[in-house]
């Protein structure tokens, strides 16, 4: 019985290895093959990926192959996927979306170009001296967010900051927001959470203690936005988010980054890298301006907020009555 098991095991393994070779061959039509590693599934990151892939496909007329993998937030899985992508010698360059994927990719691959995107604080990653790494930062301009809050919610004195203590992006941005709020004579109240289960309590406390709520760029917030927005509306507290995509879920407004544009910009940089027009070191870290304001009219009405005309003209209005 043992011998048969061993033989079956060896045969299966051989079949698998052979089929791997077949599957991995670069399709003859492609000019380039890109390995994409996304940290987790959520709307912003999905848009970056879509924007990136669509732009590349349109520029290369479809003659580009993208292998897209998702680590679903697990470090160990990210490691395994990175090993897998790097082992594919046909891949010309790598694209990592968000911090975890970038940390893993940049530390494993030192030859081929690694382009990162949607990383809020690239300097904290310690990859400045990696000569093959370049990227697009999605750091939101916190001052713009705070100004937006001031213009829309005139009576605000205390502002609650709901953020994930376990996500470095979130922590960095929250610190910056605190500073900006204090500079604008507003009192910040930090409410940190570690998992989705803590959100209901956190948002209730936030509504009780503050006049308004701001959330930074944060995976857990993104996933729980419906719950957060619903509760905030119920308690009649305005919610300002940092991700434009979340405004339609019930937030008042955001002055953030358009993630599809981030994806598109990343694609443009990738094209330069692939064509060897520029070296990664030359490109360094690029930022995309986060000045696109999105306002949810319906929520503003529900909270009796008056939208100044100047803002109305500059912003994208959603949630028409």
């Amino acid at each position, binding site marked *: 019985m043992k011998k048969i098991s061993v033989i079956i095991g060896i045969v299966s393994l051989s079949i698998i290895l052979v089929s791997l070779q077949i599957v991995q061959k670069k399709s003859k039509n492609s000019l380039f093959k890109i390995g994409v590693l996304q940290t987790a599934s959520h709307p912003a990151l999905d848009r970056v990926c879509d924007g990136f892939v669509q732009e590349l496909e349109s520029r290369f007329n479809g003659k580009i192959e993208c292998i897209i993998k*998702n680590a679903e937030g697990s470090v160990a899985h990210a490691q395994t996927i990175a090993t897998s992508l790097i082992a594919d010698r046909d891949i010309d360059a790598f694209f990592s979306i968000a911090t975890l994927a970038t940390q893993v990719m940049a530390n494993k691959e030192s030859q081929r170009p690694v382009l990162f995107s949607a990383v809020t604080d690239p300097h*904290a990653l*310690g990859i400045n001296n990696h000569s093959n790494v370049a990227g697009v930062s999605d750091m939101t301009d916190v001052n713009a967010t705070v100004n937006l809050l001031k213009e829309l919610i005139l009576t605000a004195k205390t502002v609650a900051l709901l953020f994930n203590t376990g996500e470095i992006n979130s922590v960095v941005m929250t610190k910056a927001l605190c500073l900006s709020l204090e500079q604008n004579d507003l009192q910040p109240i930090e409410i940190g959470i570690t998992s989705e289960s803590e959100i209901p309590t956190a948002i209730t406390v936030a509504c009780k203690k503050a006049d308004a709520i701001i959330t930074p760029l944060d995976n857990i917030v993104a996933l729980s936005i419906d719950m957060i927005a619903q509760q905030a509306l119920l308690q009649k507290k305005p919610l300002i988010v940092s991700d434009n995509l979340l405004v339609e879920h019930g937030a008042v407004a955001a002055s953030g980054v358009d993630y599809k544009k981030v994806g598109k910009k990343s694609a443009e940089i990738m094209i330069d890298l692939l064509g060897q027009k520029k070296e990664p070191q030359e490109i360094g870290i690029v930022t995309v301006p986060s000045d696109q304001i999105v306002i949810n009219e319906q929520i503003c009405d529900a909270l009796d907020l008056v939208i100044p005309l100047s803002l109305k003209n500059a912003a994208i209005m959603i949630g028409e009555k």
Partner: protein
Amino acid sequence: MLDIIELCKGVLELGFIYSLVVIAVFLTSKIISFDDLTVEGSFGIGGAVAACCALWGFNPLVAILFSIMSGILAGIATGLLARKLNINGLISGLIVTTALFSVSKKVAGSAMVTIPADANLFNCVGIPTHLNKFIILASVSFGALFFVKWLLRTEFGSMLKALGCNPQLLTNLGKNINGYTIATLSIANGLTACAGALFVNYTSFFSLTGNIGTFIYALAGLMFAEIFSDKLGVAIILGAIAYPALYMITIQLQLDPDLTKLIIALLMVTMLLFKRKSIKHVAMR
């Protein structure tokens, strides 16, 4: 063209790191029949301590030592909760793991910490070759295996085995059940913390959520190991490698990523059906 060697190397290296956790879970779940959830927290605190030491400029080997000590303390904490305060073993492990989440964050300083290249264990120890990580991890893995095998053959180890199948015997021999339980938990969590430290050095960064799923990973590894052999041996290391290997296969076959976990579950069932040992033997234990 697929670099199979690179692929295998990556899977094996990860497997070697996790084999330490599988050995730890073998010691607790199988030898002393104490399902210890602390390993999830120890993996994290081991990594946090390693990261902290790296930032402070300690020698990476000293950092590993400190990591192991933090794991030992975690094991002692769980043991005291379970034996002295009579809290259920699983709950004790859960309590300590929960506490360690906060402790890890404070020790590391932040949710994600990069290990400077000059403080990385793999850059400081061994020969600076392509295979350095592989050699070091393989040595540690086999070293830990032989250490625990030796330990179980000693008088001390025999007490642990007796504790697992009949604690009354230990009392009859005038031995302290609490002491042996706490000692085993310390050793197991020391090993896990070491694995956590190695993981952090391997990936070059510490992530607060990097330890999530460690216990499940280790149990799965143990289950796979049982397919090959019941005893403590190379089977444990094979079992630890099986999970990342399965995951790697699902990635490579470019199967629908949403179905990955389901496919792994199905593959696990298939592998378990090949198990030589009959169910009866398991029940007898």
